[in-house]
């Protein structure tokens, strides 16, 4: 449980971080360290150089701008959970952050680190996909924005190129009247979701006018359950609709299987959790 030798830098500006990252092929960015450090302790990961972003003040902020909430990559889960702005303007994200790991993890782990690590069972993506969030990727040669759906390529694999740093997550402000819920059943050792569901539901006069549903922990990457969404919109908000829609939770998804939960169980769990999350959201009005 002792990592291999590595160099350590703690730059105070993003440009310095990018320069360091570009100058060392063995370098790896360190955010909250909640995934990378354990891997290093097992020596499964042996980066030659860690570039710690913790001392860059510009990466830890929450701000409202142009109809979206911008969240700096180094904002901790606890800050996301407790931010008054996020709670008011993007409530699903704050609700989801409260479910991540435990208090210690939420105090150290960061939204940027989590999104970049792209664990297929991480909580954030379920909320961020349902909220159609975007991420900002910066390199020495420029910057680009990417939707989270395209950013998450596969398990532990993202669009991030060598020399790039994810600096911000942009979440559109919640629409008026939209109800939200996050629900998860976790594996008790790791706290990772065996099926986590983020739901946004718009209901007008008893009819569902808007639906976003995303799942994590079920497939090899978190995904939007568009078949569920389609089965909801235009229907009356109620138990029958929710149950019928939830049956599509894993349409086209090759469910994961591990010693904690078989694919069969995950498929069942996904449908149950989607239905219950929809009921939670509808009941939160």
């Amino acid at each position, binding site marked *: 449980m002792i990592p291999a030798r590595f160099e350590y830098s703690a730059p105070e500006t993003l440009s310095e971080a990018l320069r360091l990252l570009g100058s060392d092929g063995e370098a790896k960015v360190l955010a909250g360290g909640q995934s990378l450090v354990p891997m*290093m302790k097992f020596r499964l990961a042996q980066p030659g150089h860690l570039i710690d972003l913790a001392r860059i003040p510009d990466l830890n902020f929450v701000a409202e701008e142009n109809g979206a909430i911008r969240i700096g990559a180094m904002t901790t889960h606890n800050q996301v959970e407790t931010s008054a702005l996020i709670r008011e303007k993007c409530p699903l994200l704050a609700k989801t952050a409260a479910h991540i790991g435990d208090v210690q993890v939420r105090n150290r782990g960061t939204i940027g680190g989590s999104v970049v690590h792209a664990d297929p069972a991480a909580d954030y993506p379920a909320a961020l996909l349902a909220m159609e969030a975007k991420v900002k990727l910066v390199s020495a040669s420029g910057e680009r924005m990417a939707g989270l759906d395209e950013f998450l390529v596969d398990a532990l694999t993202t669009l991030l190129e060598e020399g790039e740093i994810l600096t911000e997550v942009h979440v559109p402000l919640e629409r008026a009247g939209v109800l939200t819920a996050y629900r998860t059943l976790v594996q008790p050792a790791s706290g990772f979701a065996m099926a986590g569901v983020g739901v946004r539901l718009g209901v007008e006069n008893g009819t569902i006018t808007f639906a976003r549903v995303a799942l994590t922990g079920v497939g090899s990457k978190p995904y939007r359950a568009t078949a569920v969404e389609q089965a909801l919109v235009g229907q009356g908000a109620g138990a029958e609709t929710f149950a019928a829609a939830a049956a599509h939770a894993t349409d086209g998804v090759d469910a*994961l299987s*591990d010693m*904690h939960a078989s694919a069969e169980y995950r498929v069942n769990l996904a449908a149950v959790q989607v239905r219950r999350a929809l009921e939670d959201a509808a009941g939160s009005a």
Partner: protein
Amino acid sequence: MKLKGTYAMPAPRDEVWAALLDPAVLARTLPGCKSLQETGPDEYAMQMSLVISSVKGLFEGKVRIMDQQPPESYRIEVEGRGKIGFVNGGGAFLLKDAGDVTDIDYEGEVKVGGMIASVGQRLMDMTSKMMIKRFFTALEDEITERE
């Protein structure tokens, strides 16, 4: 861990067969393959560098191809060892004509040991699925580019 699936390769069966058993093609398409050297009839020595997220593992091992029934079926046995653990696997490939495509049915079992077995279980299934996907995608690129 058991693995099973079908990949629909958009190429005629003979061509798919040839590619699957061509060491040069395999060296280019097997994820992380650094080198593949023939050591005997249908036996190869392989070096693989596995990179998944921050995890890097260098493996050295052997590949054996058995029970060839061209252009229909064969078996493969793989054995690899590295600092982070070891992998032993065996599988059967069955190639079926399916109109414009060749269906590659694969079924096998992978056994891992050492560090990766005791700390990496949660990621095993998704990692192997990802590796298979990477392999077939690369193989498809290889076959279709050749045309």
